């Protein structure tokens, strides 16, 4: 009797075990890896940074010597530091406002006015963000320096009004450079929003008797506020985190901003705890702005109601067309002057006065000899990190979008956090966690660079894919499941092919920005892991302009080729990877 019972129990036991092994675990494993990665390489370092900010100062030393608010006291008690804080806020806010003032009208012109060469305009319009921003800054030194050609020209025009241009070194220069570098974010997003908006809404307003100005004010602009908010935030975050431009033209004790101050605290004073506390302050400001942005945008988020959609009618009047072309051309020429300057400069040895002097091919000839290793590093690191980002980003987007696990919001926040964190902050965090006597010492390795790149750039693919997934009907995947496909088969054969355009556009964004990455790399690279942008930065600082220009030109051509190829492909859209 008892034997019979135990047999039944045994049977139940084996079937349970069998069921356990028959279960489809691929889902769990694929999901677990990125989560663990985020925990180790993002959450842990950020926690360490936060803790370190409250440690007593340490000289090149990772020893814990007691809790203290000393770092913050130093910060708020030192004039230069406070000035840097003020500078950062002023620069970032002005840049954001200026970018909106330039980018929105330009986006409208390209999207809604009948002008030729729109595809080219859009491609050219993204160029300013694909050149290392400090290179742009240096070209403005050439052009707007004391004897610079543009300064001479502008001063000639402005003289009758009694105005002279302020020095390029300082706040004016930083705001100018960053605006001309970052307005493409607003332009691209505004262009996308204006051309994608449902024209039926505007047409119905017109039929109800609204004039053009009224339609613009009550229909068109309110509907693009979410996109605009995303772009504005992106510009602000980039501006406050930018290291290259202030490093080149923010010269003098009065012109520090937070990222240069972090580098100064870590590289100059060697105090990682002080650097950590500056990083914490930097993050707090960004967090505050993010909060305000979310608050404003959330009041203007709308569901699309109508199912039918027509394309917007274009303005065809001659006046509008001429204005649009002239406006776009002026902005483009101005913002592309640095690229032009760099290309010209790469064939010369000096450019001190109005025009460059000393034509030579040697700048290019030297690349193979002096930069082979850096070229390899740049491409190896960027491509490896991009591939990893593509995989991680799409899997993570899939998890949060489709599986909606508990704590999806937290996951979303942790993935997006590095998006708003300045590169120097991420570097400091990684240094804090993996620099000294922590669990792993990774400084000076390829690994720490790839990790920092992944942490900072995964949001591109993540956002792009998440946006794509929300538009993808879940029944496409359900249909596959019903047909008998396991989760992994469905993911491979249905989900991935369908989100491929989003993966590609996110990856292109990742690759092109990584090829010119400076702010993270400068703190993390070792002697053997220097990249091309680092070499360019050093060349600029030591006055080897020709060498720097030739290297920049090579980067520029590569990056433009990648982006142009992608823009001609159907269904890929860069702007979706920029949204928060």
């Amino acid at each position, binding site marked *: 009797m008892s034997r019979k019972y135990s047999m039944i129990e045994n049977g139940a036991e084996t079937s349970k075990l069998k069921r356990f092994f028959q279960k*489809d675990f691929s889902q769990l494993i694929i999901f677990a890896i990125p989560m663990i990665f985020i925990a180790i390489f993002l959450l842990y370092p950020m926690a360490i940074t936060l803790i370190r900010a409250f440690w007593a100062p340490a000289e090149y030393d990772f020893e814990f010597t007691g809790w203290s608010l000393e770092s913050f006291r130093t910060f708020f008690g030192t004039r230069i530091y406070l000035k840097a804080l003020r500078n950062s806020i002023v620069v970032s806010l002005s840049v954001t406002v200026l970018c909106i003032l330039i980018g929105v009208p330009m986006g409208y012109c390209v999207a809604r006015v009948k002008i030729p060469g729109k595809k080219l305009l859009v491609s050219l319009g993204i160029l300013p963000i694909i050149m290392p921003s400090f290179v742009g800054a240096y070209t403005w030194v050439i052009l707007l320096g004391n004897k610079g050609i543009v300064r001479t020209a502008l001063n000639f025009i402005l003289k009758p009004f009694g105005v002279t241009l302020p020095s390029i070194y300082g706040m004016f220069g930083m705001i100018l450079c960053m605006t001309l570098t970052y307005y493409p974010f607003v332009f691209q997003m505004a262009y996308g929003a204006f051309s994608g908006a449902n024209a039926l809404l505007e047409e119905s307003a017109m039929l109800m008797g609204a004039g053009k100005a009224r339609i613009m004010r009550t229909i068109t602009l309110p509907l693009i506020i979410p996109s605009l908010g995303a772009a504005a935030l992106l510009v602000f975050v980039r501006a406050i985190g930018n290291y290259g431009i202030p490093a080149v033209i923010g010269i003098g004790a009065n012109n520090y901003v937070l990222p240069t101050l972090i580098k100064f605290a870590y590289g100059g004073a060697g105090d990682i705890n002080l650097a950590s506390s500056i990083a914490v302050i930097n993050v707090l400001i960004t967090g505050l702005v993010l909060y305000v942005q979310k608050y404003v945008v959330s009041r203007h988020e709308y569901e699309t109601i109508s199912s039918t959609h027509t394309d917007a009618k274009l303005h065809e009047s001659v006046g509008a067309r001429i204005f649009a072309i002239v406006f776009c051309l002026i902005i483009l020429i101005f913002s592309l002057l640095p690229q032009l300057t760099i290309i010209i400069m790469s064939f010369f040895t000096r450019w001190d006065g109005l025009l460059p002097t000393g034509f030579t091919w040697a700048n290019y000839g030297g690349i193979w000899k002096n930069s082979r290793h850096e070229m390899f590093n740049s491409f190896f690191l960027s491509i490896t990190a991009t591939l990893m980002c593509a995989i991680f980003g799409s899997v993570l987007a899939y998890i949060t979008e489709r599986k909606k696990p508990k704590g999806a919001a937290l996951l979303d926040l942790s993935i997006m956090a590095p998006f708003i964190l300045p590169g120097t902050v991420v570097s400091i965090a990684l240094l804090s966690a993996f620099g000294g006597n922590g669990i792993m010492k990774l400084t000076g390795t390829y690994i720490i660079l790839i990790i920092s790149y992944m942490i900072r750039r995964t949001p591109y693919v993540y956002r792009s894919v998440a946006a794509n997934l929300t538009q993808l009907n879940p029944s496409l995947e359900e249909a596959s499941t019903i047909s008998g496909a396991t989760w992994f088969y469905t993911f491979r054969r249905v989900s991935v092919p369908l989100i491929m355009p989003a993966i590609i556009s996110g990856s292109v964004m990742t690759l092109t920005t990584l090829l010119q990455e400076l702010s993270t790399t400068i703190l993390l690279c070792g002697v053997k892991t220097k990249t091309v942008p680092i070499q360019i930065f050093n060349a600029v600082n030591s006055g080897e302009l020709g060498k720097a220009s030739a290297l920049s030109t090579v980067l520029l051509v590569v990056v433009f080729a990648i982006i142009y190829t992608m823009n001609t492909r159907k269904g890929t859209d860069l702007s979706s990877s920029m949204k928060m």
Partner: protein
Amino acid sequence: MSKNVRYENVNKIFGLGTKNEVHALKDISFTINEGELFCLLGPSGCGKTTLLRNTAGLDTITSGKMYYGDVDISTIPPYKRNIGMVFQSYALYPHMSIFENVAYGLRVRKVPNDIVTKKVNDVMELVGLQEELKRNPSPTALSGGQQQRVAIARALVYDPDVLLLDEPLANLDAKLRRYMRAEIRRIQKATNITTIFVTHDQEEAMAVGDRLAVLRKGVVEQIGTSDELYNQPRNAFVANFIGKMNFFNATVISTDADETVAQIDTTGIRVAIRAEKRHVEPQVGDMVLIGGRPEYLSVSATATEKSLPGTVRIIQHLGSFIRYEVEISREISPVTLEIDMDSLQPGIHEGDTVNVSFDESRIALFSPEGREV
């Protein structure tokens, strides 16, 4: 091999344990026979789609059991259930040709290539797309009706035990919808696969289904053939959902084995209802509804002993008949009556006062509970 589908005390509660608990399916128990084309019908939010998704395994039921044939499939994941499903949006893969779309389920099952080709050809012939298959375009290049056929072919090609159709005709225009519902019935009868068809359109359900289940608020109100549901509705809800039924508030005066006499409220009109038309066991003094379909009622300019006065609101020509919408005393019927006449009544115009009378022999008796849709 076609199988029957059996539900035993199936419950589905969304957001169990939270504040927003929704009891979407309440103790559902019934059986769908082998090879049957069965319609799940009900207003939106009645639980019909929930029941279908749970049958597919896309959602899991909270309690109860579901069987395909003798196998309890309640906890089996959807990809092991061997079912076919056609989605409202068709869910065709834009990155695959129509051949690969249809072949998908066979590829999953690792069927050899030559058999895949043969099976896809056969099923495309069955749904009438052999010409399109020769060109083999992307599904986005097809018309709505053709996409629908591809979706059906894709669901049928691997000989599923059960075929599920989720409002498959909702995205088609009226004419195509009528044509496709006949097509679906033809294809289903040709393959003899047990099929569940979800719709909110009673006309469609009656036209397509061998049997229908009417659902309301997660409960099966009645199951039967179209004829049974139309002529012997179990309650006022079914009566008014399957076709239109006009109701009058009334009170039972007397009742016996043969007939019940009820008096229409606020009037002296008494109506005798035959025993087989009673859908409630009335007691003297009960509030009841007496119901008549539009064609059992008539309008006339002249009053009779048993007619009710009302005002014509709208007159609609609907092809083979004329519909009069007549407003009568709110105490008797709070909603406007719909009355169908074979021909236009001379001398009756919108806004006129008319007299409504009914064919007493066809009037039915219902409990007033659950009258509202």
